Protein backbone atom coordinates (compact mmCIF):
# COMPACT_ATOMS: atom_id res chain seq x y z
CA UNK A 1 0.00 0.00 0.00
CA UNK A 2 1.47 3.37 -0.96
CA UNK A 3 0.29 6.73 0.30
CA UNK A 4 1.14 10.26 -0.89
CA UNK A 5 2.09 12.40 2.08
CA UNK A 6 1.44 16.13 2.08
CA UNK A 7 1.62 18.79 4.74
CA UNK A 8 -0.36 22.01 4.98
CA UNK A 9 1.89 25.04 4.66
CA UNK A 10 0.25 26.44 7.77
CA UNK A 11 -0.48 23.87 10.49
CA UNK A 12 -2.94 24.00 13.37
CA UNK A 13 -1.45 24.43 16.87
CA UNK A 14 -4.66 23.62 18.73
CA UNK A 15 -4.32 19.83 18.75
CA UNK A 16 -3.02 17.79 21.69
CA UNK A 17 -2.43 14.09 22.32
CA UNK A 18 -3.75 12.68 25.60
CA UNK A 19 -2.87 9.32 27.15
CA UNK A 20 -6.04 7.24 27.48
CA UNK A 21 -5.66 4.69 30.26
CA UNK A 22 -8.13 1.75 30.34
CA UNK A 23 -10.21 3.64 32.95
CA UNK A 24 -10.37 6.74 30.76
CA UNK A 25 -11.34 4.65 27.74
CA UNK A 26 -14.21 3.19 29.79
CA UNK A 27 -15.38 6.69 30.70
CA UNK A 28 -15.29 7.68 27.02
CA UNK A 29 -17.31 4.64 26.02
CA UNK A 30 -20.04 5.37 28.55
CA UNK A 31 -22.46 7.70 26.77
CA UNK A 32 -23.80 9.01 30.10
CA UNK A 33 -20.39 9.97 31.40
CA UNK A 34 -18.76 13.35 31.17
CA UNK A 35 -15.13 14.45 31.17
CA UNK A 36 -14.01 17.90 32.15
CA UNK A 37 -10.68 19.71 32.21
CA UNK A 38 -10.34 21.87 35.33
CA UNK A 39 -7.72 24.02 36.97
CA UNK A 40 -7.94 24.61 40.69
CA UNK A 41 -7.37 27.95 42.33
CA UNK A 42 -8.59 31.46 41.82
CA UNK A 43 -6.27 32.64 39.07
CA UNK A 44 -6.16 31.13 35.60
CA UNK A 45 -2.61 29.84 35.90
CA UNK A 46 -2.58 29.16 39.61
CA UNK A 47 -3.39 25.51 39.80
CA UNK A 48 -2.47 22.48 37.76
CA UNK A 49 -4.85 21.19 35.12
CA UNK A 50 -6.71 18.00 35.96
CA UNK A 51 -9.18 15.87 34.05
CA UNK A 52 -12.29 14.76 35.94
CA UNK A 53 -15.01 12.23 35.34
CA UNK A 54 -17.96 12.09 37.76
CA UNK A 55 -15.96 10.17 40.32
CA UNK A 56 -12.25 10.22 39.40
CA UNK A 57 -9.49 12.74 38.94
CA UNK A 58 -6.39 12.54 36.73
CA UNK A 59 -3.48 14.98 36.87
CA UNK A 60 -2.13 16.06 33.49
CA UNK A 61 1.63 15.83 33.05
CA UNK A 62 3.27 17.17 29.91
CA UNK A 63 5.91 14.83 28.48
CA UNK A 64 8.06 16.60 25.91
CA UNK A 65 10.00 14.64 23.31
CA UNK A 66 12.55 15.30 20.64
CA UNK A 67 10.93 13.55 17.64
CA UNK A 68 8.78 14.96 14.84
CA UNK A 69 5.19 13.79 15.23
CA UNK A 70 2.86 14.64 12.39
CA UNK A 71 -0.91 14.21 12.66
CA UNK A 72 -2.41 13.51 9.28
CA UNK A 73 -5.85 13.16 7.76
CA UNK A 74 -6.86 11.27 4.63
CA UNK A 75 -8.28 13.42 1.85
CA UNK A 76 -9.13 13.23 -1.83
CA UNK A 77 -7.13 15.81 -3.79
CA UNK A 78 -9.04 18.15 -6.05
CA UNK A 79 -6.51 17.65 -8.81
CA UNK A 80 -5.00 14.34 -9.64
CA UNK A 81 -1.60 14.21 -7.91
CA UNK A 82 1.30 13.84 -10.28
CA UNK A 83 2.85 10.48 -9.78
CA UNK A 84 6.25 10.22 -8.23
CA UNK A 85 7.85 7.63 -10.46
CA UNK A 86 11.31 7.82 -8.94
CA UNK A 87 10.91 4.93 -6.58
CA UNK A 88 9.41 2.27 -8.78
CA UNK A 89 6.62 1.58 -6.28
CA UNK A 90 2.96 0.80 -6.87
CA UNK A 91 0.88 3.90 -7.56
CA UNK A 92 -0.26 5.53 -4.37
CA UNK A 93 -3.79 4.57 -3.42
CA UNK A 94 -4.53 7.52 -1.12
CA UNK A 95 -3.38 10.91 0.02
CA UNK A 96 -2.81 12.09 3.57
CA UNK A 97 -2.22 15.68 4.64
CA UNK A 98 -0.43 16.70 7.82
CA UNK A 99 -2.60 19.21 9.69
CA UNK A 100 -0.66 19.46 12.96
CA UNK A 101 2.65 18.63 14.56
CA UNK A 102 3.16 17.91 18.27
CA UNK A 103 6.32 17.84 20.40
CA UNK A 104 4.69 16.56 23.57
CA UNK A 105 1.97 14.29 24.95
CA UNK A 106 -0.23 14.74 28.01
CA UNK A 107 0.18 11.83 30.38
CA UNK A 108 -2.74 11.16 32.73
CA UNK A 109 -1.95 10.14 36.29
CA UNK A 110 -4.83 9.13 38.54
CA UNK A 111 -4.77 11.13 41.77
CA UNK A 112 -7.03 11.73 44.74
CA UNK A 113 -9.02 14.84 43.98
CA UNK A 114 -8.70 17.50 46.68
CA UNK A 115 -11.52 19.87 47.57
CA UNK A 116 -10.59 23.57 47.54
CA UNK A 117 -11.61 25.14 50.85
CA UNK A 118 -9.82 28.46 50.36
CA UNK A 119 -12.44 31.17 50.88
CA UNK A 120 -15.00 28.80 52.44
CA UNK A 121 -15.89 30.33 55.81
CA UNK A 122 -16.34 28.51 59.11
CA UNK A 123 -19.83 28.92 60.55
CA UNK A 124 -20.22 28.76 64.32
CA UNK A 125 -24.03 28.88 64.40
CA UNK A 126 -24.27 32.66 64.51
CA UNK A 127 -27.58 33.94 63.21
CA UNK A 128 -25.70 36.73 61.37
CA UNK A 129 -24.39 34.32 58.78
CA UNK A 130 -24.32 34.83 55.81
CA UNK A 131 -24.03 38.60 55.34
CA UNK A 132 -27.11 40.10 53.70
CA UNK A 133 -25.78 40.46 50.16
CA UNK A 134 -23.16 37.71 50.31
CA UNK A 135 -20.67 39.98 48.60
CA UNK A 136 -17.87 39.11 51.01
CA UNK A 137 -18.21 35.45 50.20
CA UNK A 138 -16.24 34.50 47.07
CA UNK A 139 -17.69 30.98 46.96
CA UNK A 140 -21.39 31.57 46.47
CA UNK A 141 -22.72 28.11 45.74
CA UNK A 142 -21.83 24.42 45.73
CA UNK A 143 -21.37 24.74 41.95
CA UNK A 144 -18.72 27.41 42.61
CA UNK A 145 -17.02 25.12 45.13
CA UNK A 146 -16.96 22.21 42.70
CA UNK A 147 -15.74 24.39 39.82
CA UNK A 148 -12.81 25.68 41.89
CA UNK A 149 -11.75 22.25 43.18
CA UNK A 150 -9.30 20.03 41.27
CA UNK A 151 -11.63 17.22 42.04
CA UNK A 152 -14.44 15.07 40.66
CA UNK A 153 -17.95 15.72 41.93
CA UNK A 154 -18.13 12.48 43.92
CA UNK A 155 -14.75 13.02 45.61
CA UNK A 156 -15.67 16.63 46.38
CA UNK A 157 -18.97 15.71 48.05
CA UNK A 158 -17.42 12.86 49.99
CA UNK A 159 -14.74 15.14 51.46
CA UNK A 160 -17.31 17.88 52.02
CA UNK A 161 -19.51 15.58 54.09
CA UNK A 162 -16.61 14.34 56.21
CA UNK A 163 -15.45 17.89 56.94
CA UNK A 164 -18.88 19.02 58.16
CA UNK A 165 -19.61 21.06 55.06
CA UNK A 166 -22.99 22.75 54.97
CA UNK A 167 -24.91 25.38 53.04
CA UNK A 168 -26.62 28.27 54.77
CA UNK A 169 -29.00 30.11 52.44
CA UNK A 170 -27.11 28.43 49.59
CA UNK A 171 -23.67 29.64 50.69
CA UNK A 172 -21.13 26.86 51.36
CA UNK A 173 -19.54 26.88 54.80
CA UNK A 174 -17.83 24.49 57.21
CA UNK A 175 -19.59 24.05 60.54
CA UNK A 176 -17.22 24.77 63.43
CA UNK A 177 -16.27 21.91 65.72
CA UNK A 178 -18.24 23.46 68.61
CA UNK A 179 -21.35 24.09 66.55
CA UNK A 180 -21.19 20.57 65.07
CA UNK A 181 -20.91 19.10 68.56
CA UNK A 182 -23.95 21.06 69.73
CA UNK A 183 -25.88 20.04 66.61
CA UNK A 184 -25.01 16.38 67.22
CA UNK A 185 -26.00 16.59 70.88
CA UNK A 186 -29.32 18.26 70.09
CA UNK A 187 -30.00 15.77 67.30
CA UNK A 188 -29.34 12.76 69.54
CA UNK A 189 -31.46 14.10 72.39
CA UNK A 190 -34.33 15.01 70.09
CA UNK A 191 -34.17 11.69 68.25
CA UNK A 192 -34.26 9.76 71.55
CA UNK A 193 -37.08 11.93 72.89
CA UNK A 194 -39.15 11.08 69.81
CA UNK A 195 -38.05 7.41 69.88
CA UNK A 196 -36.58 7.62 66.38
CA UNK A 197 -34.67 4.59 65.12
CA UNK A 198 -30.90 5.30 65.04
CA UNK A 199 -30.48 2.84 62.21
CA UNK A 200 -33.00 4.71 60.01
CA UNK A 201 -32.93 8.43 60.70
CA UNK A 202 -34.95 10.25 58.06
CA UNK A 203 -34.06 13.89 57.52
CA UNK A 204 -37.62 15.22 57.75
CA UNK A 205 -38.44 13.35 60.98
CA UNK A 206 -35.11 14.24 62.56
CA UNK A 207 -35.44 17.90 61.60
CA UNK A 208 -38.99 18.01 62.99
CA UNK A 209 -37.82 16.36 66.23
CA UNK A 210 -35.00 18.90 66.68
CA UNK A 211 -37.23 21.84 65.91
CA UNK A 212 -40.12 20.83 68.07
CA UNK A 213 -40.76 23.56 70.57
CA UNK A 214 -37.88 25.68 69.19
CA UNK A 215 -38.19 29.39 68.65
CA UNK A 216 -37.62 29.57 64.90
CA UNK A 217 -36.17 33.11 64.98
CA UNK A 218 -33.23 32.05 67.12
CA UNK A 219 -32.83 28.48 65.90
CA UNK A 220 -29.56 27.77 64.13
CA UNK A 221 -30.42 24.08 63.48
CA UNK A 222 -31.71 24.44 59.95
CA UNK A 223 -32.56 21.49 57.76
CA UNK A 224 -29.15 21.82 56.10
CA UNK A 225 -27.37 21.75 59.47
CA UNK A 226 -29.24 18.58 60.49
CA UNK A 227 -28.40 17.05 57.12
CA UNK A 228 -24.70 17.91 57.61
CA UNK A 229 -24.81 16.30 61.06
CA UNK A 230 -26.34 13.11 59.66
CA UNK A 231 -23.83 13.02 56.77
CA UNK A 232 -20.88 13.40 59.13
CA UNK A 233 -22.02 10.95 61.80
CA UNK A 234 -24.00 8.50 59.76
CA UNK A 235 -24.01 6.47 56.60
CA UNK A 236 -26.65 6.88 53.95
CA UNK A 237 -29.03 3.95 53.86
CA UNK A 238 -28.74 2.24 50.50
CA UNK A 239 -31.55 2.99 48.06
CA UNK A 240 -33.16 5.47 50.42
CA UNK A 241 -32.39 9.13 49.83
CA UNK A 242 -32.44 11.29 52.91
CA UNK A 243 -32.18 8.39 55.36
CA UNK A 244 -29.11 7.64 57.46
CA UNK A 245 -27.89 4.95 59.82
CA UNK A 246 -26.12 6.59 62.76
CA UNK A 247 -22.47 5.51 63.05
CA UNK A 248 -22.51 4.89 66.79
CA UNK A 249 -18.78 4.22 67.01
CA UNK A 250 -17.98 7.49 65.26
CA UNK A 251 -20.34 9.39 67.57
CA UNK A 252 -18.81 7.79 70.66
CA UNK A 253 -15.30 8.66 69.45
CA UNK A 254 -16.30 12.28 68.82
CA UNK A 255 -17.59 12.61 72.37
CA UNK A 256 -14.48 10.84 73.66
CA UNK A 257 -12.08 13.22 71.93
CA UNK A 258 -13.95 16.20 73.33
CA UNK A 259 -13.94 14.61 76.78
CA UNK A 260 -10.17 14.09 76.58
CA UNK A 261 -9.76 17.74 75.59
CA UNK A 262 -11.97 18.86 78.48
CA UNK A 263 -10.79 16.59 81.30
CA UNK A 264 -7.29 15.47 80.35
CA UNK A 265 -5.55 18.44 78.71
CA UNK A 266 -3.70 20.03 81.63
CA UNK A 267 -3.08 16.84 83.58
CA UNK A 268 -3.51 13.13 83.15
CA UNK A 269 -6.51 11.14 84.38
CA UNK A 270 -6.92 7.50 85.43
CA UNK A 271 -8.71 5.45 82.75
CA UNK A 272 -11.58 4.35 84.99
CA UNK A 273 -12.30 7.96 85.99
CA UNK A 274 -12.07 9.06 82.36
CA UNK A 275 -14.59 6.45 81.23
CA UNK A 276 -17.10 7.83 83.71
CA UNK A 277 -16.46 11.40 82.54
CA UNK A 278 -16.74 10.32 78.91
CA UNK A 279 -20.06 8.60 79.51
CA UNK A 280 -21.34 11.68 81.34
CA UNK A 281 -20.90 13.82 78.24
CA UNK A 282 -23.45 11.78 76.25
CA UNK A 283 -27.13 12.65 76.26
CA UNK A 284 -28.85 10.76 79.10
CA UNK A 285 -29.66 7.13 78.26
CA UNK A 286 -27.61 7.26 75.05
CA UNK A 287 -26.87 3.65 74.03
CA UNK A 288 -23.21 4.01 73.00
CA UNK A 289 -20.51 1.52 73.99
CA UNK A 290 -17.15 3.00 74.90
CA UNK A 291 -13.59 1.70 75.23
CA UNK A 292 -10.34 3.57 75.75
CA UNK A 293 -8.84 1.90 72.66
CA UNK A 294 -11.35 3.75 70.46
CA UNK A 295 -9.44 6.95 71.18
CA UNK A 296 -6.01 5.75 70.09
CA UNK A 297 -4.25 8.61 68.34
CA UNK A 298 -5.69 11.15 70.79
CA UNK A 299 -3.93 10.38 74.06
CA UNK A 300 -0.62 9.37 75.58
CA UNK A 301 0.24 7.85 78.97
CA UNK A 302 2.74 10.06 80.78
CA UNK A 303 2.81 7.84 83.87
CA UNK A 304 1.59 4.28 84.25
CA UNK A 305 -1.88 3.89 82.82
CA UNK A 306 -3.13 7.49 83.18
CA UNK A 307 -4.30 9.20 80.01
CA UNK A 308 -3.52 12.70 78.75
CA UNK A 309 -4.87 14.42 75.65
CA UNK A 310 -2.47 14.78 72.70
CA UNK A 311 -3.33 16.17 69.27
CA UNK A 312 -1.35 15.25 66.15
CA UNK A 313 -1.57 18.91 65.14
CA UNK A 314 0.89 19.81 67.91
CA UNK A 315 3.48 17.26 66.79
CA UNK A 316 6.40 18.01 64.44
CA UNK A 317 5.84 17.18 60.79
CA UNK A 318 9.37 15.83 60.42
CA UNK A 319 9.23 12.10 61.20
CA UNK A 320 12.44 11.93 63.25
CA UNK A 321 11.41 14.95 65.31
CA UNK A 322 7.96 13.46 65.78
CA UNK A 323 9.31 10.21 67.20
CA UNK A 324 11.69 12.21 69.42
CA UNK A 325 8.78 14.21 70.81
CA UNK A 326 6.61 11.13 71.32
CA UNK A 327 9.35 9.36 73.29
CA UNK A 328 9.93 12.49 75.34
CA UNK A 329 6.25 12.46 76.31
CA UNK A 330 6.15 8.69 76.90
CA UNK A 331 9.29 6.57 76.94
CA UNK A 332 7.63 3.31 75.94
CA UNK A 333 4.58 2.77 73.79
CA UNK A 334 2.34 -0.08 72.73
CA UNK A 335 2.59 -0.49 68.97
CA UNK A 336 -1.16 0.09 68.64
CA UNK A 337 -1.03 3.31 70.67
CA UNK A 338 1.85 4.94 68.77
CA UNK A 339 0.90 3.89 65.23
CA UNK A 340 -1.97 6.42 64.79
CA UNK A 341 0.42 9.27 65.68
CA UNK A 342 2.90 8.47 62.92
CA UNK A 343 1.01 6.73 60.11
CA UNK A 344 0.15 9.98 58.27
CA UNK A 345 3.90 10.41 57.67
CA UNK A 346 4.19 6.94 56.13
CA UNK A 347 3.96 8.41 52.64
CA UNK A 348 5.55 5.43 50.91
CA UNK A 349 2.82 3.09 52.15
CA UNK A 350 5.11 0.66 54.02
CA UNK A 351 3.60 -1.82 56.49
CA UNK A 352 3.22 0.22 59.65
CA UNK A 353 5.53 -1.90 61.82
CA UNK A 354 8.21 -1.79 59.13
CA UNK A 355 7.83 1.99 58.98
CA UNK A 356 8.07 2.38 62.76
CA UNK A 357 11.14 0.14 62.91
CA UNK A 358 13.04 2.63 60.71
CA UNK A 359 12.90 5.17 63.55
CA UNK A 360 12.42 3.20 66.75
CA UNK A 361 13.18 -0.02 68.57
CA UNK A 362 10.69 -2.84 68.95
CA UNK A 363 10.87 -5.51 71.64
CA UNK A 364 8.49 -8.19 72.66
CA UNK A 365 7.25 -8.15 76.23
CA UNK A 366 4.89 -11.05 76.84
CA UNK A 367 2.24 -10.91 74.16
CA UNK A 368 2.77 -7.22 73.36
CA UNK A 369 5.28 -5.28 71.27
CA UNK A 370 6.83 -2.33 73.04
CA UNK A 371 8.20 0.58 71.03
CA UNK A 372 10.99 2.75 72.44
CA UNK A 373 13.67 5.06 71.09
CA UNK A 374 16.77 3.68 69.44
CA UNK B 1 16.85 23.49 -5.78
CA UNK B 2 15.41 26.00 -3.32
CA UNK B 3 12.64 23.64 -2.27
CA UNK B 4 14.21 21.80 0.63
CA UNK B 5 12.44 18.64 1.84
CA UNK B 6 14.72 16.83 4.22
CA UNK B 7 14.99 14.86 7.45
CA UNK B 8 17.76 16.00 9.79
CA UNK B 9 18.31 12.83 11.77
CA UNK B 10 18.82 12.87 15.57
CA UNK B 11 21.02 10.21 17.10
CA UNK B 12 19.03 9.80 20.30
CA UNK B 13 15.49 10.20 21.57
CA UNK B 14 14.74 12.10 24.76
CA UNK B 15 11.43 12.24 26.60
CA UNK B 16 12.35 12.19 30.27
CA UNK B 17 11.13 15.62 31.32
CA UNK B 18 7.62 15.89 32.69
CA UNK B 19 5.90 18.90 34.13
CA UNK B 20 2.43 19.86 35.32
CA UNK B 21 0.20 21.70 32.87
CA UNK B 22 -1.06 25.27 33.28
CA UNK B 23 -4.52 26.26 31.99
CA UNK B 24 -3.22 28.86 29.53
CA UNK B 25 -0.95 26.34 27.82
CA UNK B 26 -3.97 24.25 26.78
CA UNK B 27 -5.08 27.12 24.53
CA UNK B 28 -1.81 28.53 23.22
Amino acid at each position, binding site marked *: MSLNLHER*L*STDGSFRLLHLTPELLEVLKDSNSKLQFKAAGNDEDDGDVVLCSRDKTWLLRQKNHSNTVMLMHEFTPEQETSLETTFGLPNPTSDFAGFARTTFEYETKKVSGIINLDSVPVHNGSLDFPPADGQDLPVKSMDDLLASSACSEKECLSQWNQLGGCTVKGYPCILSSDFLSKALHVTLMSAMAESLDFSRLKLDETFDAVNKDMDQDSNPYTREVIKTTLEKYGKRVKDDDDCWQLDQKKVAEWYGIRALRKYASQSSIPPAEFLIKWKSTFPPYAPFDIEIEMLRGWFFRPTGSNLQYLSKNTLPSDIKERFKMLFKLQSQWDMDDIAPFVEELNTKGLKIDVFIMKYARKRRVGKKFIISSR | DEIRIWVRYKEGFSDAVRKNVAWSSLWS
Partner: protein
Amino acid sequence: MPSVNVSKRQLQTLLQSDQHQTSVSTPLGNMMLEIQGDLEVPRQWHEDQRFTTDGEHQMVRWGLLHIDTARNNATLFVGRKQRLLGSLVKLDTPLGLIKFNQQDGTVEMQDVFHYKVLFKSRPLPIM
Protein backbone atom coordinates in the same frame (compact mmCIF):
# COMPACT_ATOMS: atom_id res chain seq x y z
CA MET C 1 -11.20 28.40 38.43
CA PRO C 2 -11.70 27.60 34.80
CA SER C 3 -13.20 24.40 33.50
CA VAL C 4 -14.40 23.01 30.19
CA ASN C 5 -16.32 19.90 29.21
CA VAL C 6 -14.78 17.54 26.68
CA SER C 7 -17.13 16.87 23.79
CA LYS C 8 -16.96 13.38 22.34
CA ARG C 9 -19.59 13.90 19.69
CA GLN C 10 -17.31 12.92 16.81
CA LEU C 11 -16.19 9.78 18.57
CA GLN C 12 -19.61 8.58 19.65
CA THR C 13 -20.42 6.14 16.84
CA LEU C 14 -16.88 4.81 16.91
CA LEU C 15 -16.96 4.10 20.63
CA GLN C 16 -20.42 2.58 20.61
CA SER C 17 -19.58 0.15 17.84
CA ASP C 18 -16.28 -0.69 19.55
CA GLN C 19 -14.41 -0.06 16.32
CA HIS C 20 -10.85 0.98 16.77
CA GLN C 21 -7.73 1.40 14.72
CA THR C 22 -6.11 -1.82 13.55
CA SER C 23 -3.85 -0.49 10.78
CA VAL C 24 -2.10 2.64 9.55
CA SER C 25 -5.09 4.94 9.78
CA THR C 26 -8.03 5.11 12.19
CA PRO C 27 -11.63 4.41 11.09
CA LEU C 28 -12.09 8.21 11.04
CA GLY C 29 -9.19 8.61 8.57
CA ASN C 30 -6.41 9.94 10.81
CA MET C 31 -2.79 8.78 10.95
CA MET C 32 0.09 9.46 13.35
CA LEU C 33 3.57 9.55 11.83
CA GLU C 34 6.73 9.86 13.89
CA ILE C 35 10.31 10.47 12.77
CA GLN C 36 13.43 10.53 14.96
CA GLY C 37 14.68 13.83 13.62
CA ASP C 38 13.53 17.18 12.30
CA LEU C 39 11.46 17.10 9.10
CA GLU C 40 12.08 20.20 7.03
CA VAL C 41 9.34 21.15 4.65
CA PRO C 42 8.78 24.49 2.86
CA ARG C 43 6.30 26.85 4.47
CA GLN C 44 5.96 29.17 1.46
CA TRP C 45 4.10 28.51 -1.77
CA HIS C 46 6.18 27.65 -4.82
CA GLU C 47 5.05 27.21 -8.38
CA ASP C 48 5.89 23.56 -8.45
CA GLN C 49 3.85 20.42 -9.06
CA ARG C 50 4.41 19.38 -5.46
CA PHE C 51 2.39 22.36 -4.23
CA THR C 52 -1.38 22.04 -4.39
CA THR C 53 -4.47 23.56 -2.87
CA ASP C 54 -7.23 21.60 -1.25
CA GLY C 55 -10.19 23.77 -0.38
CA GLU C 56 -8.80 26.58 1.72
CA HIS C 57 -5.50 24.82 2.49
CA GLN C 58 -2.27 25.15 0.59
CA MET C 59 -0.06 22.12 0.95
CA VAL C 60 3.15 20.55 -0.23
CA ARG C 61 3.66 16.92 -1.13
CA TRP C 62 6.77 15.91 0.78
CA GLY C 63 6.87 12.16 0.81
CA LEU C 64 5.64 8.74 -0.11
CA LEU C 65 4.81 6.11 2.49
CA HIS C 66 4.85 2.47 1.57
CA ILE C 67 3.42 -0.09 4.01
CA ASP C 68 4.00 -3.82 3.80
CA THR C 69 0.83 -4.80 5.63
CA ALA C 70 1.85 -8.44 5.96
CA ARG C 71 5.00 -7.62 7.94
CA ASN C 72 3.99 -4.20 9.36
CA ASN C 73 7.14 -2.75 7.78
CA ALA C 74 7.12 0.75 6.43
CA THR C 75 9.32 2.69 4.03
CA LEU C 76 9.20 6.47 3.88
CA PHE C 77 10.60 8.38 0.92
CA VAL C 78 11.29 11.97 1.87
CA GLY C 79 11.80 14.51 -0.90
CA ARG C 80 13.83 13.05 -3.72
CA LYS C 81 16.90 11.99 -1.81
CA GLN C 82 16.08 10.17 1.40
CA ARG C 83 14.62 6.80 2.32
CA LEU C 84 13.73 5.78 5.88
CA LEU C 85 12.90 2.30 7.13
CA GLY C 86 10.39 1.93 9.94
CA SER C 87 7.34 0.05 11.13
CA LEU C 88 3.75 0.21 12.25
CA VAL C 89 3.90 0.20 16.05
CA LYS C 90 1.10 -0.49 18.53
CA LEU C 91 0.97 2.23 21.20
CA ASP C 92 1.40 1.09 24.81
CA THR C 93 -1.31 3.58 25.78
CA PRO C 94 -3.85 4.77 23.18
CA LEU C 95 -3.68 8.50 22.47
CA GLY C 96 -6.75 10.70 22.25
CA LEU C 97 -6.63 13.45 19.62
CA ILE C 98 -8.05 16.55 21.25
CA LYS C 99 -8.73 19.95 19.74
CA PHE C 100 -8.77 23.02 21.99
CA ASN C 101 -10.76 25.72 20.15
CA GLN C 102 -9.43 29.06 21.27
CA GLN C 103 -12.19 31.02 19.48
CA ASP C 104 -15.14 29.55 21.35
CA GLY C 105 -13.40 27.95 24.33
CA THR C 106 -14.65 24.45 23.49
CA VAL C 107 -12.76 21.17 23.60
CA GLU C 108 -13.42 18.15 21.43
CA MET C 109 -11.95 14.67 21.42
CA GLN C 110 -11.83 13.85 17.71
CA ASP C 111 -10.18 10.45 17.48
CA VAL C 112 -8.17 7.76 19.26
CA PHE C 113 -4.85 6.45 17.96
CA HIS C 114 -3.89 2.86 18.78
CA TYR C 115 -0.99 2.71 16.29
CA LYS C 116 1.63 5.00 14.84
CA VAL C 117 4.07 4.70 11.96
CA LEU C 118 7.54 5.16 13.46
CA PHE C 119 10.88 5.84 11.78
CA LYS C 120 13.85 5.66 14.16
CA SER C 121 16.67 4.74 11.80
CA ARG C 122 19.10 7.02 10.08
CA PRO C 123 17.87 8.00 6.58
CA LEU C 124 19.42 6.12 3.68
CA PRO C 125 20.22 7.73 0.36
CA ILE C 126 18.04 6.83 -2.57
CA MET C 127 20.18 5.16 -5.21
